[in-house]
């Protein structure tokens, strides 16, 4: 029973990692760049939600506004910062997004009255628990798991059936060929950044009731890298599975192993994974040709 309880809380945590990792993978598949500021996108999303509810908006209005706003923000970032250096070595984009993360974290602390403190997002299900048998389920965790599952289903349907989703798949497989087929690859890249920012915002909004919202909560994004690598960096289902694996491992390590292992469990897993199977669980095994 104990192990089941730990697994469920691990899955709930893993869902957050999975959503952030999903953002990495979306961007990586589309533009072959990695966004090190994904955690900060999540932080911004959580703050946007907090600010909107503070202004008196009901939660049902604040959430869609936040998600839409972050989508716009993601597209803006792509247009202003990423597109000018497209085609440069990966190092460049990594440094750029690290800088971007720093800037966002710094700017948030400067917002008077909000940035310095910690906040909570008031949700109707705050602190509620369900008891079934010997299990104690907090509704917050169930909400995280449920929303993640629903979001995955929506994304699956979009990529499978909608015109724009199919175009995104095509451009992630071969940009040049997609371009020749008349797909507006640049505009799609912008959309992908928007999509990934809004997924990060959802992760932030889900995390907000569980932990506090503060300026350095984006550090959680560092834990999502292992998730993306374990699943294979180029695979969307891989990101979800990787996130869940990391979440459960961390939750179990925190209980059964000595203190300190919880924080590094994710990184140990990723190092082992890189040595054994560098392409991840779901990654395609590709070799570069000359």
């Amino acid at each position, binding site marked *: 029973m104990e192990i089941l309880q730990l697994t469920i809380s691990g899955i709930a945590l893993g869902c957050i990692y999975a959503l952030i990792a999903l953002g990495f993978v979306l961007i990586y598949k589309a533009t*072959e760049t990695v966004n090190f500021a994904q955690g900060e996108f999540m932080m911004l999303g959580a703050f946007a939600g907090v600010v909107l509810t503070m202004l008196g908006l009901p939660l049902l209005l604040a959430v869609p506004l936040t998600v839409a706003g972050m989508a716009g923000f993601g597209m803006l970032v792509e247009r202003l910062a990423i597109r000018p250096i497209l085609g440069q070595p990966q190092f460049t984009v990594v440094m750029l997004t690290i800088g971007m993360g720093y800037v966002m974290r*710094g700017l948030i602390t400067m917002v008077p009255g909000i940035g310095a403190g910690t906040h909570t997002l008031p949700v109707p299900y705050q602190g509620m628990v369900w008891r079934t048998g010997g299990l104690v389920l907090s509704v917050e965790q169930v909400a995280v798991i449920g929303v993640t599952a629903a979001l995955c289903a929506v994304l699956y349907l979009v990529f499978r059936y909608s015109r724009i989703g199919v175009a995104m798949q095509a451009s992630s497989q071969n940009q040049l060929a997609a371009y020749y087929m008349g797909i507006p690859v640049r505009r799609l890249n912008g959309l992908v950044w928007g999509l990934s920012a809004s997924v990060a915002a959802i992760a932030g909004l889900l995390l907000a009731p569980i932990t506090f919202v503060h300026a350095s909560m984006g550090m959680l994004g560092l834990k999502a890298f292992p998730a993306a690598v374990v699943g294979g960096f180029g695979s969307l289902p891989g990101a979800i599975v990787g996130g869940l694996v990391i979440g459960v491992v961390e939750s179990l390590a925190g209980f059964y192993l000595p203190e*300190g292992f919880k*924080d590094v469990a994710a990184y*140990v897993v*990723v190092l082992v994974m890189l040595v054994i199977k560098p392409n991840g669980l779901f990654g395609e095994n590709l070799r570069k040709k000359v």
Partner: protein
Amino acid sequence: MRFLFKTDYRQDLSLARHSGHVFWYGLLLVCLLIAPGWASSYWIAQLGFVLIYAIAGLGLMVLSGYTGLLSIGHAAFLGVGAYAQAWLTSHGVPFVPALLAAGALSALAGVVVGLPALRVKGIYLAIATLAFGLIVEEVLARWDSVTGGNAGLPVAAPQLFGYVLEGPVAFYYLALAVCLLATLAVLNLLRSATGRAFIAIRDSEISAQSMGIHLARYKTLSFALSAALVGIAGALYAHKLRYISPEQFGIAQSIDLLLLVVVGGLGSVHGAFLGAIFLIVMPQTIVLAKDFLPPAIAQASGLQALVYGTVLMAFVLFEPLGLYGRWCKIRTYLELFPFYRQGMFRRQKAFQRSERLK
């Protein structure tokens, strides 16, 4: 404009390419040697930090700037060197052997990280080094019996041939000597066959391999040499601060080191020094600027992060060759005076550099 006529084989071998180099670098060295005579002890202490960061920057430059491998966990090597030095000197090992041992131990750690690096590249390598850096930080915090845990560890003043080097001036000369040796070593390394192999790997792994360069060996070697230099810098850092604790060697420090090489200019030895100066001067400039800013901004805890991030973004977007690249442009402009063209240093776009094969 200067034309180089080589009339002697020794000209090919000497480090200084022409008399201008000899004059200017000689002048710089003399200025540094007599610096304690005219600068206040505060600035000497800061200069000591610049020299230490320059050594660490040289280390990361060998790896990132010349071999093209990205590392987001280099503060871990700084930590390994610092703690090794602290532990060894507290157990009675003299300064020089301890320094060499700290470098060697750090190099060993570098080989360990280098092993997964042989199979992965690009972003995977960045994440592997990030994971390594975070694990080392946690180990430093938890291994109480050796590292003193989160409480930290006091470090004695360096002791050299029976003399205790107290005070910033003595330490400054020590750091200057080590830094000079490190710089000469790196300069010689880069013009040797090994250094050329590193540069070949950076420019194209496949062509390097085709030319008979053993990728695994040279990548591991690059990691080891880089880690050794950073470890030596860490050892000096421990003596400089006299007190070390794990959070000094975390992700923030790693990103500071990356900032150093990017701002200084990737792929140049000068860049390591310019970047080190930047890294030391920047926080003080921010402190000075605080008086002129509105209190909401000046009191915010994230002010330094904001400035660092902005500088990093600005350099990546507008001056990818860093401070040294800017200096090269100015020099070329002056040398060619009316004939300088805008596009002389334009970046080539490399859209074909896809990591995928489809």
